[in-house]
Structures are given as structure tokens and as C-alpha cells.
């Protein structure tokens, strides 16, 4: 297992053969073998992933505390989220996880062209995900569905002028949205249970604070993933990887799957509240 230089034709450098500790180019000098190097890197990535889980858990905790205390706010506010777009993004992200796993497989089997193709598809999915996210954020921005303090639902200001809007807003605070002209433009029809509590309209901004913080932090991770996959793609094009050195592909893959994992929980928690 350690006798890699005997079996690996890949890039055994001239000077390392002269040294007393010969090793291929892709094995750092302080490792015994390519496998030890791979295992050490993977251990480090798993520790990093745990810190990521705990990083996100702060936001999940905020979510749990607010939903535990104000469940009606979450029931009310989730009607403003587009379930279909959320489901679409879930499918896109799961598919990109598949292509990432296939990329790791291609790297292990030294299928360079397949590796490059799968990484490109993964990148494409990441951009589709962000594009859908942009559409969603933009809809919320246009309708004033913003975080606490900046929340000013809804579209009626443009329809009725500022006076009607402030009157509507007062009415909304007092009684919640009603059917008819004072109903927010998005969503067009709020179900009756949405008006169940006076607490709901008052605290919707808090829901959107949590929504933007959670999906925003997740989107930042997707952007970070785009950077990481691009780096792997460039190295794959350069031909850095072989069956003894595919660690970086695997590490970026693990990170990408974690981003997928977080979304698997975010989607039902934010979009599918019942």
C-alpha cells in the first residue's frame, strides 16, 4: 500500500527519487502514503463540516424558539413563500448532489472527461439554484416582505396611494388581512386561518428575518461552493487527479453535499409549514 512509487506511474519527480523518502508529486512530503494523505484531509473536512452544522444550528435554534412561541406567525407568513419554486430548488440541489457524487466517482476511476462534465453540470445547477433564489428574493423585495423593521407588506401602496396604504396597514395590524381590496397583493388569496391571530401580522417581519438569514447564509454557501467547484474544475482540466489523488474532489463534494443537507431541512421548515 505504501509502495506507491512502484505501482503509480503518475508524476514521480526526479528529485524525490534522489531523496531518501521517495514519493509521487501529489503526496506531500510529511505523509507516508497517498492514502494516509487522503484520510487526513478527509478527517479535516469532516471536522469542518461539523463546525458548519453548528454554525447553521444557531439559526435553526432561532427558528425553533420563534416557531415554538408564535406558531401562528409561521403559518401566516409561509403563505408568502412560493412552494413550487422551493420544490424546484430542492430538486435542482439534489440533482447537483448526484452529479457531484458522480464527479467524485469519475475522479476515482480516472475518467477525466466525465469528471469535467459532471463538475460543469454541478456548477450549472448551482447557478440555476441562485437564479431561482433571486426571483424569490426579488418578489419579496417588491412586495415589502422584508425583515423585522423593514417589513412593510404589501403591494397595496402602489394600488391605493399612500393614504389608503397607511389606513390599510392600520387595519391589517388590528384585524389581519381580510378578503377584498385590503388583501395584500401577494399572495392573492390568504386562507381564513391566516387571520387567526393578531400576533401574526405584527410579527411577520420576524419570520422574514429568519427566512432571509437562513436562506441567505445558505445561498452564501452555494456561492462558496461555486468557487470551490470552479477550482476543482480548473485542476481537473489541468489533469491533476488520478486514482491515488482525488482527495480535493472528494472534499469539495462533501462540502457540497452538506449544503444540500441544510437545504433538505430548510425547505420543509420554511416553505411547507402546516
Amino acid at each position, binding site marked *: *500500500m505504501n509502495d506507491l512509487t512502484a*505501482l*503509480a506511474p503518475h508524476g514521480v519527480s526526479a528529485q524525490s527519487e534522489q531523496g531518501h523518502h521517495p514519493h509521487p508529486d501529489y503526496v506531500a512530503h510529511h505523509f507516508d502514503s*497517498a*492514502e494516509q494523505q*487522503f*484520510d487526513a484531509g*478527509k*478527517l479535516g473536512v*469532516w*471536522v469542518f*463540516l*461539523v463546525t458548519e*452544522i*453548528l454554525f447553521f*444550528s444557531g439559526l*435553526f*435554534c432561532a427558528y*425553533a*424558539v420563534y416557531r*415554538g*412561541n408564535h406558531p401562528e406567525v409561521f403559518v401566516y407568513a409561509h403563505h408568502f413563500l412560493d*412552494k413550487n419554486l422551493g*420544490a424546484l430548488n*430542492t*430538486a435542482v440541489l*439534489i*440533482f447537483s*448532489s*448526484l452529479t*457531484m*457524487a*458522480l464527479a467524485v*466517482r469519475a475522479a*476515482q*476511476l480516472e475518467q477525466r472527461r466525465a469528471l469535467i462534465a459532471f463538475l460543469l453540470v454541478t456548477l450549472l445547477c448551482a447557478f440555476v439554484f441562485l437564479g431561482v433564489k433571486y426571483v424569490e428574493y426579488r418578489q419579496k423585495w417588491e412586495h415589502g416582505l422584508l425583515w423585522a423593521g423593514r417589513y412593510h407588506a404589501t403591494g397595496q401602496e402602489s394600488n391605493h396611494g399612500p393614504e389608503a396604504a397607511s389606513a390599510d396597514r392600520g387595519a391589517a395590524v388590528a384585524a389581519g388581512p381580510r378578503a377584498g381590496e385590503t388583501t395584500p397583493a401577494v399572495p392573492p388569496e390568504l386562507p381564513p386561518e391566516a387571520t387567526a391571530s393578531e400576533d401574526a401580522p405584527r410579527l411577520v417581519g420576524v419570520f422574514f428575518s429568519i427566512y432571509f438569514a437562513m436562506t441567505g447564509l445558505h445561498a452564501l454557501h452555494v456561492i462558496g461552493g461555486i468557487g470551490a467547484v470552479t477550482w476543482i474544475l480548473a485542476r481537473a482540466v489541468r489533469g491533476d487527479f*488520478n*486514482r*491515488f489523488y*482525488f482527495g480535493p474532489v*472528494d472534499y469539495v*463534494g*462533501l462540502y457540497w*453535499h*452538506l449544503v*444540500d*443537507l441544510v437545504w*433538505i*431541512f430548510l*425547505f*420543509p*421548515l420554511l416553505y*411547507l409549514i*402546516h
Partner: protein
Amino acid sequence: MKTAESGRQEGFGHVVPLGTLLAVFAALIVLTGITVAATWVDLGSANLFIAMGIAAVKATLVALYFMHLRYDHPFNALIFVVGLLFLTLFLGLTLLDTRQYQPEIQAAVENPV
């Protein structure tokens, strides 16, 4: 353990079979569909637990197969599980007493200083 794709010396690490990856992907998509469909039925508070249960199953599939934990050194899985343990501790301890403060918060909201 090895899938011999060529007569050459095999690398280390486990190569997940193509069929397994595709099957896991199909399962994840089906489970996503079930999660969405489950919201059409009103089961009261059970809806949340069903949604979280399905999400947990999906997460397990991703971790075991896409993230190789099933084939990996158990130590990596141990690190992951310990992380989840601390997550549970964090959420659990916070949620223990969070409702206790609600009367005071409500009073402050109704009678601002």
C-alpha cells in the same frame, strides 16, 4: 470492495456503484414529492414531525451514500454523529425554558415603557 474497471492497480477508497447513486437520487426525489404531498393533508401537529422525519431520512441517505459514510472509516461517522449530538444539546437546552419568558415579553409588548 473494488470495482475492477481495468486491469491496473486499484486506488484506495470505495467507488460507489453507479446504480446505488442513481437509486439514492431517485429515492431523494420521491421523498421530496412525498414531503410536498404531505402538506395537502391536515394531520395537525403530526405534519411537522412527518416533514422532519422525511428530511431526516433524506439526510441519512445523502450522508451514507453521497458522502460515503457507509463505506468510510467509522471515525468520520463518529465525528458527524458527535456534531449532531451537540446540535441536539444546543436546541434541546434552549427550548427547555423558552416559553417561560412569554408572559413578560407579552406584557412589555402591550405596555411599552
